[in-house]
């Protein structure tokens, strides 16, 4: 009981951060599922969403800035795919991956140019950033609303993929592009849809994440992006439930380690986990056996 009350703040923070990682990880895993591409620019899309909020909140009220952030992030995600990945559709996979790294650096350097390299103060979102006390733990409300919001969004996403026509097309396209085209599926629309969903969730993730960690720098997307990527690999890349569960496990573990007083090693844990997973179970928790697309 004593241990629990001492660690409750870390556990809560862990669940919350895990949920935020989950929202980013879904973007990695969905894009991988359909294109077999690690979208290295995804963490930077997340960062851009943060910056858009910083600048938007200076000129408009927050209730307008939030939808604007969602829309702008989705548009950027869509454009990145159209400009940097679509022309390489028939190119070797390595070329697309290099293009993704290029987009990542482009976004970071554009952010560097815009911000001048200074950390930008993220605005306090009313209600979400308020300080509250639950079970004797003082925290921000975002900590408490993140887990249910993530579960709600993931449930909606799973419904979309399992029950709708576009979801069916996405599942088909993730297995076989050519045959999907023979069904009359517009492959490019399906891919765009994937990027739109991934960017939307990354934008929601950024709203929650930066409400807790207030500074936005050009490279701020790297760490959450990497951890979300590890979560996606841990869960079995290509699997949405896997990415979500992986993200929660990583978020909670990291914070419990912090609670034990080993803060220095909390990041190391995540990457050690990546190495262990890649050695002993490369397909992750829920991943399918690796079979290359024909």
């Amino acid at each position: 009981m004593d241990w629990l009350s001492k660690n409750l703040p870390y556990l809560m923070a862990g669940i919350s951060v895990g949920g935020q990682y989950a929202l980013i990880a879904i973007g990695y895993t969905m894009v991988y599922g359909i294109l077999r591409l690690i979208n290295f620019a995804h963490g930077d899309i997340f960062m851009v969403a943060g910056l858009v909020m910083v600048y938007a909140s200076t000129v408009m009220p927050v209730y307008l800035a939030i939808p604007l952030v969602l829309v702008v992030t989705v548009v950027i995600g869509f454009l990145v795919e159209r400009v940097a990945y679509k022309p390489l559709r028939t190119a070797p996979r390595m070329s697309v991956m290099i293009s993704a790294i290029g987009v990542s650096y482009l976004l970071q350097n554009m952010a560097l140019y815009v911000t001048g390299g200074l950390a930008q103060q993220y605005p306090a979102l009313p209600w979400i950033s308020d300080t509250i006390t639950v079970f004797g733990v003082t925290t921000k409300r975002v900590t408490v609303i993140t887990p249910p919001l993530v579960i709600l969004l993931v449930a909606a996403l799973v419904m979309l993929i399992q029950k709708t026509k576009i979801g069916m097309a996405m599942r088909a396209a993730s297995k076989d592009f050519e045959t999907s085209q023979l069904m009359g599926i517009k492959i490019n629309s399906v891919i765009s849809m994937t990027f739109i969903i991934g960017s939307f969730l990354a934008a929601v993730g950024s709203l929650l994440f930066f409400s807790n960690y207030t500074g936005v720098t050009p490279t701020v997307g790297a760490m959450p992006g990497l951890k979300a990527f590890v979560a996606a690999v841990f869960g079995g890349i290509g699997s949405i439930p896997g990415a979500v569960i992986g993200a929660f496990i990583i978020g909670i573990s990291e914070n419990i380690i912090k609670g034990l007083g080993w803060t220095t090693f909390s990041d190391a844990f995540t990457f050690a986990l990546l190495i262990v997973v890649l050695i002993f179970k490369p397909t992750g928790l829920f991943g399918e056996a690796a079979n290359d697309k024909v």
Partner: protein
Amino acid sequence: MSNLLEVRDLTVSYGGIQAVRGISFDVPEGQVVTLIGANGAGKSSTLRSIVGLVKPSGGSIQFQRNELKGSMTENIVKKGITLVPEGRRVFVNLTVQENLRLGAYMRSDDLTEDLNWVYDLFPRLKERSWQAAGTLSGGEQQMLAIARALMSRPKLIMMDEPSLGLAPIIVQGVFDIIREINRQGVTILLVEQNANMALKAADLGYVMETGRITMQGKGSELAENEEIKAAYLGKARK
């Protein structure tokens, strides 16, 4: 009788290799037409270029007097052509019924009638409608691939080696279905290595060798042709 599909001087190249070297053939409406030939003769490339999966390097492909060359696959399929691909290629992670619904992906009308139609043709699929397609046997998967193609209500259905890798008794079933579909008014372009079965089922046959059409005629006549018998039907040359 009008031609549903007219192919003229079609060439297909992969890099420097010409797989199809200027072939011309017709598919008259309401008939079963077959392209037979050995491995690498260019049969599959021909079908794949008609449906836009590979870009032809020359020639023309006219469907109901509309040029198809250069169109996107999704637009070609929308005009009423469909391909049952080689190796079946059912979506193994989807259920049988989802596979069928994907076949009608471009349509937004009610599918109940069409589902009943294909379930009548393939009662086996109805029994297994909730199973993942990957759990079906090879023959059942072939039936599903054909049923899926029918769901788009095509005018022309092209089949790439539907008998490949199936037991003789199942092959017989596949050809029975081909006749039945044709009887119901769908035009069929069939690519086969099983020349004997294909020519028996076909109104019109073309023989392809290394990218060219070397012989053509009525299916029944080609089946009796000595040269074809020697080359494809396993009869020793005298």
